[in-house]
């Protein structure tokens, strides 16, 4: 879970906080919440696809 969090933090920070300002703006926070959901979904899609190939 640590690895997932680290990679997600990095990707979502890169995608959502393009110009770091004085605080996380509300639009950045909205983006981060969506990015978190999408990243976990991507992880599940990748996991499912990979495991189905190993079977």
């Amino acid at each position, binding site marked *: 879970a640590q690895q997932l969090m680290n990679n997600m933090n990095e990707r979502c920070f890169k995608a959502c906080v393009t110009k770091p300002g004085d605080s996380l703006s509300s639009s950045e926070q909205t983006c981060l919440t*969506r990015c978190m959901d999408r990243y976990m979904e991507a992880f599940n899609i990748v996991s499912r696809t990979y495991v189905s190939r*190993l079977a």
Partner: protein
Amino acid sequence: QTQAKIHSSVHNFTTMCWDKCITSTPSTRFSRSEESCLVSCVDRFLDTSIFLVKQIQERRGSQ
């Protein structure tokens, strides 16, 4: 293949395929093309590994 190696591959594939397929700002859901890109990215990467290993073996055989 051990459980740990599979896990580490899933993390690698997720970051690699995320960088390849998700180029716009994250939205409330994946577009159809983003989702199919993620699936195909994993499948074609595995195909690529198999393809390259076969190429190497063929050359070794023909030497």
